[in-house]
């Protein structure tokens, strides 16, 4: 069996380094927000930080409108500003001193 010249491992290591940089370092930085808006593929769940935790809170996007789901809700509650009629007519809401 003839002797095979031993090549350097540089190329292989660089490939690994590239993957480590892209898939590990850059992904960590992306999740930290250092590369711009953090884009999620699904809803976000927040743990119950109370001393006596009872459940999680979910932040959900449905139809371009944000919903919150907490353990006290039987359905997701919409947080939609366009759904809140603001103004001073009898069926609208205004903050501060105002006249309906």
């Amino acid at each position, binding site marked *: 069996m003839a002797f095979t010249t031993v090549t350097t491992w*540089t190329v292989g*290591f*660089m490939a*690994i*380094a*590239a993957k*480590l*940089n892209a898939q*590990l*370092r850059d992904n*960590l*930085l992306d*999740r*930290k*927000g*250092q*590369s*711009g*808006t*953090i*884009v*999620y*593929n*699904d*809803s*976000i769940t927040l*743990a119950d930080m109370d001393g006596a935790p009872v459940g999680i809170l979910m*932040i*959900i*996007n*449905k*139809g*371009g*409108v*944000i919903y919150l789901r907490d353990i006290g809700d039987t359905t997701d509650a919409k*947080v*939609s*500003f*366009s759904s809140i009629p603001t103004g001073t007519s009898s069926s609208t*809401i205004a*903050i*501060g*001193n*105002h*006249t309906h």
Partner: protein
Amino acid sequence: MGWTAPGTWTETTPIYTETDLNAQIRDNLAYLKARGVVPTLEAKLSLPDKGISPVGAVILKVIDAVLWIRNAADGAYAKIATASVPTGTGVTQVSLGSHTHAPSLDTSATVASSLATDTYPVTDYSHTDTIAASATSDVATATISFATARAYGLAAIRGEAATANTLKVQLIMGGTLIAEDGYMSTSCSLITVSGTGALSGSQSCICRVKNYDSGSSRSWYSDGYPSASEVVAFVAAGSATTGGAV
């Protein structure tokens, strides 16, 4: 356990120690998972649309410690500052669903803001008041200094029109038509009109009858029981606080 900036891997990168790898990989992943720490994210958060008919992303961001949300359906960022929304049934609070706001009377104000009244000066049982075409007749007038910008008024007449569909009773406050009844009946009845206005300072409050006939003068008849306690017509006005406790 805070965030450790992950290093860049190069051909000449020195061999990372287990301390480096634990800090940059294990601890950073735990940091982003918020295990044992509140992570500080450095950009906006974008959530995909999970609705049946998706229209766009929702974005959360913080400016000056206030959370803002951009709903794709709304098209613009809106501030979420829940502590700034006073909830309850007070005059300046917000409640959802059926509820009653009960502004308190301005009893603590000066005498000028308390109830002011005036009565129809005529005391005969069936007095005739004839009003020219398209003209008005001020039946009772009270001048009041409203202590707040919220004024309440009431005008009343007990009488009847000589001709149907010609006369209407009005409440005027501060020169503005606040309320108006329908056409005065040709049968005697008690007619009341009331309303509120954004007024302050000294204002005249008038119980007025307007002749809507542009071609002829029209009359109405008082039909009361004038005595020391009963009147044909009157106007009353007062003000109430808009920021008082319920």
